[in-house]
């Protein structure tokens, strides 16, 4: 009998899937390879009512091949061009897992630029939909390469709104969920500060602290669960080429 070694990428996919447990009948927005597989796993297991997107203009009853659009296959069930997306955002019937170039202890996220925005050291993509997403519906983050350059004391540009800034109307529908990384899963404590929920098998609390630019307490953190045999079959079927291992080697 051989023992199957569970890969880190598959642990991350299962953690993403868990983040969408109980989301209900909403449009799943997943940026990145691991998140894209994770929402498919969520739909295939505990949340069949979840609505998937092809990343272009369609909501998909049966998803196209990974990272491809409806033109490559699958079954569209609704037409959701970009103009509908902003209305769906404002309706709240959406759940995002976005990337992040910086995240601080309050959950502020930056994808806009590094340094002073007036003349940035490094210009990134722009705030995109992060400000709107975070004040309208549940938002999680995915960080494929957890480091102290990403988990910083203070973000240079708050693109996604953190818990400390979510006051008044900005706080009405504000709902930060989890941050899944290649090392751990984080949530937020009662004060809205980032806290460790679980640490991935094979990662030490010291490693995790070293890769995080603000103090965290991982000493008593439980291990992130491993995917089940059934889940592994689904993951393999959704990603037969192993694209997830490019994101999390």
């Amino acid at each position, binding site marked *: 009998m051989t023992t199957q070694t569970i890969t880190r990428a598959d642990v991350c996919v299962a953690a993403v899937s868990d983040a969408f447990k109980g989301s209900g009948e909403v449009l799943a927005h997943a940026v990145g390879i691991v998140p894209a597989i994770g929402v498919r796993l969520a739909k295939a297991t505990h949340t069949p009512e979840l609505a998937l997107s092809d990343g272009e203009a369609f909501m998909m009853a049966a998803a196209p091949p990974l990272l491809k659009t409806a033109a490559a296959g699958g079954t569209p069930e609704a037409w959701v061009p970009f103009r509908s997306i902003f209305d769906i955002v404002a309706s709240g019937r959406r759940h995002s897992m976005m990337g992040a170039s910086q995240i601080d202890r309050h959950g502020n996220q930056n994808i806009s630029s590094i340094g002073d925005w007036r003349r940035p050291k490094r*210009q990134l*993509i*722009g705030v*995109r939909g992060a400000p*709107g997403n975070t*004040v309208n519906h549940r938002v999680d983050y995915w960080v494929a390469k957890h480091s102290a350059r990403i988990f910083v004391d203070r973000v240079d540009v708050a693109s996604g709104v953190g818990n400390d800034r979510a006051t008044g109307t900005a706080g009405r529908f504000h709902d930060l969920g989890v941050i899944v990384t290649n090392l751990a899963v984080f949530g937020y404590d009662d004060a809205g500060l980032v806290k460790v929920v679980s640490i991935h098998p094979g990662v030490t609390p010291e490693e995790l602290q070293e890769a995080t630019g603000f103090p965290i307490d991982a000493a008593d953190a439980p291990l992130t669960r491993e995917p089940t045999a059934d889940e592994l079959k689904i993951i393999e079927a959704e990603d037969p080429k192993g694209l997830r291992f490019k994101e999390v080697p």
Partner: protein
Amino acid sequence: MLDKTLPLAEVAGKLESGMTIGIGGWGSRRKPMALVKEILRSDVTDLTVVAFGGPDVGLLARAGKIRKLVYGFVSLDSIPLDPNFTRARERGEIPETSEYDEGMFVAGLKAGANRLSFQPIRAGLGSDVMAMNPDLKTVRSPYDDEEYVAVPGLRLDVSLIHLNRADAAGNGQYLGPDPYFDDLFAMAADTTILSVEQIVSTDDLTAKAPPQTLLVPRIFVNHVVEAPGGAHFTSCDPDYGRDEEFQKSYVAAAKSDSDSDWTEFEERYL
């Protein structure tokens, strides 16, 4: 029948330095590249550019033609960042920027199209979009305790958009999966220049596709330019997809430390 056809070579004559120009499409998708090239070939400069940015913004920024940029992002989609745009920002070569949340950008266009001074939206509250745009104001709801961002209406002197088909009167048709916001760009502008893959008869527009594909009515279009391949190297589905190889060569030339690599690319491109 009205004939609004305009030769490509006469497009720059409709533009002036200092104008506010809206550019349709999204990222590296259905960008009016043939029209943008006409700007690049002309001495028109000092522009305020309003766009969901792709290589249109990168090229205009590299050519030093942008005085102010209003955007939610600049991306080449299959390649996340446009090196011409990032370089211009990092060198301080775009004097003024208005970076908005994407939803705010649409709200601004809608307000502009509706001739309203602003449109309220939740997006932007609590984020640094407010700090990056110190002129932005919030508005109190007259009905309850909510407070929203009042996105000022974006009015455009000229909009440049590219669609699949149009008739000579300027009724524009898209045949791909997403209209993007090209109709809004047209409605928010005083003058709209529409380029298309092919000009066809009005009968032909609905002979081969459902009427819902008629995105932009002629009442919002001033000039129609027939420009086959006019979105290249961005996508113009279903006529053609993005030319990924060409886009890679664009990125390589833009990234190069040697200015001659870029000059060579630009000359070949134009």
